[in-house]
């Protein structure tokens, strides 16, 4: 059996990649995908723990996370579409009307 630490390490790496992705990308869609990566890194960890501890609670949590992520996607995409309609661009670096 693969030791639990490997899963944790993998999830940590995925999480980090996701977090850095948020920082470096300018397209909100990709940023959004990076965030999904972070959530899924967490899911991976939870599932791994659940498997090791043999309890179901965690798996329920994973479902919740997935559901909520879907809801977030819906809202996020709607926002992005709305912005694209007004600005004809979705480059987030062009979105700095508000600052100071």
């Amino acid at each position: 059996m693969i030791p639990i630490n490997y899963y944790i390490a993998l999830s940590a790496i995925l999480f980090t990649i996701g977090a850095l992705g948020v920082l470096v990308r300018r397209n909100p869609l990709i940023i959004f995908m990076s965030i999904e990566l972070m959530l899924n890194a967490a899911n991976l960890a939870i599932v791994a723990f659940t498997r090791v501890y043999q309890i179901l609670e965690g798996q329920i949590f994973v479902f919740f996370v997935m559901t909520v992520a879907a809801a977030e996607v819906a809202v996020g995409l709607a926002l992005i579409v709305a912005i694209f309609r007004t600005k004809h661009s979705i480059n987030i670096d062009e979105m700095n009307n508000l600052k100071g």
Partner: protein
Amino acid sequence: MTFFYLAPWIVFFPVIGLLVNIIFGGRFSEKVIGMAASLASGLAFVVSVLLAYSLTQHPEAVRWTIGEWIHIGTLQLDWTFRVDTLSTTMMLVVSGVGTLIHIYAIGYMREDVRFKNDLKRFRRFFVFLNLFIAAMMILVGGDSYLMLFVGWEGVGLCSFLLIGFWYEMDTLGRPSWANSNAAKKAMIANRIGDFGFLIASFLMFWAFHSLQFDQVFQQAPAIAASNPGLITAITLFLLLGVTGKSAQIPLFVWLPDAMAGPTPVSALIHAATMVTAGVYLVTRSAALYVTVPAAQFIVAMVGALTALFAATIAVGQYDIKKVLAYSTISQLGFMVAGVGMGAFAAGMFHLITHAFFKGLLFLSAGSVILGMERGHHHLAHHSPLSPHPRPLSQGERGEGAREDAGHREEAFDPGDMRNMGGLRKTMPVTFWVYLTGALALAGVFPFAGFWSKDEILANAFSGGFSAVYWLLTIAAFFTAFYMGRQIWMVFFGKPRHEAAAKAEESPKVITIPLMVLAALSVVGGALNLPGVETLTKWLEHTVEFIEPGEFVMSVALTSTALALIAIFISWLLYGREPLKAGEADPLKKMFGPIFTGMERKWFVDEGYKALFIDRYVDITRFTADVIDWKFWHDWFHEKVIAGAYNWLSNVMLNRYADQRGIDAFFNGLGEWTKNAAAGLRRFQNGFVRSYALFVLIGVVAILGYLLLK
């Protein structure tokens, strides 16, 4: 039958007088105002006489409390009057001479306010004069050092008010700050002295736990035995007060300038009464002074040096009142030297005779000045005195100031002896009384001054104060000389100015007080004739350390001889060949720079200005403008504190940083360090990614802390 219960009335009468004049004076005529004020002063004199009479029945001191003042813990001060032979003597002098001067002032001020064109100020003058009498009575009548101090400062205030009486002009009536400056100078010099007085009273309180005379004096010997330094300190701080009030070195400079006040003021305050308060103070504190001979010596030396120093300056003056002013300083030096040596009776004696003859001289000088003014007006307007000076219309008043400054440029100085001459003929009464006063001052037998001055000299001679003796003797020589010079210059020879030629004798209201004072100046010596010692015995009841002065014939002869020689020399220089208009003083021709030194008061004023006054102004300006305002107020609070907040706030908002950075940040790890500082500063720039970066930095920092801790 005793009248001690009347004691408070020596203050109440003048106060009532001034209140009456303040409240109703607006409706009174000048005569009524003057009468009311004189009456108030006169009643105070009557009370003083009654008190003196009572003391003959009951010579021990009587204390009369009228109210509580300051009671805190052991500090127990009351408004208590003290009637004893010393205070009563002072009361008699103050109210007696004061009343005469009040009467004189009715005539004098009537003309003075007309020359200076402000009739309203007549009333104000008498209010101030009454106030002065009241304050002086508190000074001499108080039963504690602090009550004495109330009067002490009160008379200082009156001095300020009266020197600055014509506050908007100089002595010649030109618009100027001069008179008000003189007033301020007097008050501040006095305050410096008062500082000494205050410190002395603190020392005294914490040493004796009282400021009441009897309690202090009772404990004095015991304390002096255990801690003589303390008593020395007290007496020397008191001396500082004395130098301020009695115009001794180093604080004498205010007194000559004080002549800016109307002449009755010069006579009353700056010759006869107020300035002698220092002498009174030392006499009153005799019990302290006698325990510390070192302090006594210092007091005597200060007095003696002042006496000589001022006498030399008097020689070089041209202003009739300035001569008398320096003479006053000099004579005060005699008194201070006298009481300093422990010759309290002699000092007090000279104080009394000096009040007579110096009051007389000042008032006569005032009469001379008025005469000169009358002469001048006669010339200018061809009508001696318009009873109602032309009132200024509204439009003129503003221009007046500047116009005056213009056309009064060559203003006539009625007090300048170089404008006088030959007044003996136009003002005979004044001449005779002036001569009496001058002889008394010069110490010519048998005038009052001879007896009192000789008693001081004799004490110095036999008391082992030889330095003091010689200083005073030389001063006495100068005294006779400058008085001689003055008499010759003013009354003899030919008028050097047309005003002098047209001068007129003063009215009776002025001359009668002069005659009374002249009489006193002649017979005043009888108060304490050698061998009889009336005054000494009288004071003995109060000042237990008093010793009857001895009459030393050699001293008397020496001083008389010197006086006569001095008068003779003055005749040689000024009488034989009277000065002509515009001619330089013969002494100037002979001694050049030395005379200039005397004329310019040995540059003491200039020295004080350069050393102290200008420095004080510089320091305050620097403190106020640079330290307090520029540095502390503007720089520290505005720039440093407020500026730092605004700066921080802007830096955090990246207002100052350039906008490139965020991409460079990720161009490579090598760039990271380079741009770290810049990157960290670009905080609130509107970019989602940099916001996220911050979140991440926060996470890294927290995790780093948790892992590395």
